[in-house]
């Protein structure tokens, strides 16, 4: 799955609150749509997304079909140290996705 991550500001000062955004390519299929032959397209949504900052969870989301296709999430975290933001997620068909971005923190 394609995903884009943005961290603002970059670099951040230690202790500053940074804005983290992620956009993931995923249909978030609701399970209520039908194909051209009238068959129900099975539900497949990302149901859990986690963000770890240098291994520590700083954000988690339980998602459902109520979140739009190609989900966009923006949240905040305190810049404590340079390192990595690691996103991982799983959908209803148990397909896992992951994306990483560096986070630069200056003194």
């Amino acid at each position: 799955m394609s995903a884009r991550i943005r961290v603002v500001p970059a670099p951040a000062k230690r202790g500053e609150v940074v804005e983290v955004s992620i956009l993931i390519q995923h249909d978030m299929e609701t399970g209520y749509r039908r194909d051209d032959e009238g068959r129900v397209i099975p539900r497949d949504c990302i149901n859990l997304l986690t963000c770890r900052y240098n291994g520590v969870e700083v954000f988690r989301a339980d998602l459902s079909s109520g979140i739009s296709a190609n989900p966009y999430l923006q949240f905040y975290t305190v810049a404590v140290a340079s390192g990595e933001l690691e996103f991982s997620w799983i959908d209803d068909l148990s397909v896992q996705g992951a994306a990483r971005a560096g986070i630069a923190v200056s003194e």
Partner: protein
Amino acid sequence: MSRAVPLLAAMLALWSPGAAGQERRIPAGELKSGIAFASPEVRAMQADDFSNPGMLWVEKGARLWSTPAGGAGRSCADCHGDARSSMKGAATRYPAIDRASGELLNLEGRIRQCRSERQGAAAPRHESEELLALTAYIAHQSRGMPIEVDVDGAARPHFEAGRAFYYRRIGQVNLACANCHEQNWGRTLLSETISQGHPNAYPIYRIEWQTLGSIERRLRGCLSAVRAVILPYGAPEYRDLELFLAWRAKGLPVESPGVRR
């Protein structure tokens, strides 16, 4: 029937705006991209390069650009180098006549032709991830540049056919493209504001589709809206119409990938 044809031709002549190069029904100074008719939320979505979902396909296209394909294992980059320079302005000139075959090709058609004839790979299917991503990536390189298609020479008959289609009433609802997008742009239909119907932002992330789609898909949407027969993907009518639409939009800057409702 034989008496009706010259009568119809006369009516069409009265109705059509004249030869290419003459006045467009919407003059250059009044041209407005579809984004001007969109809600603030849609405008914000298109304006932010990070969160514009279309950019997911542009990024995918960038990866495909450098990925070898076909028998000879050549990538687009092997012939065309860095797309940011080699593809700059390319999308502003399509649809265009292919010099080798004499065929009218749109951007998707050119990509499919390159894949099959020059890379020895399978031509990607219409609306496939591969074709959408490559089209989005290439069109994006022309963002901000004005559309400048050529409708003279070998393109002329295609232009005329496209224009005839544009002004022909079709479907159960018996509407021509012009009825909405030329006579009533700016007015409200249910809760939507009718746009001028320009092709300058394609491929677009259409919220209704919940994915990226081509101009051909959008034209099919219009055909279904007026309850006309939806022509199959790849039908020449779409390309002829696309050429006319591009001529009609000459001067409007490319916005690809656009976001629309």
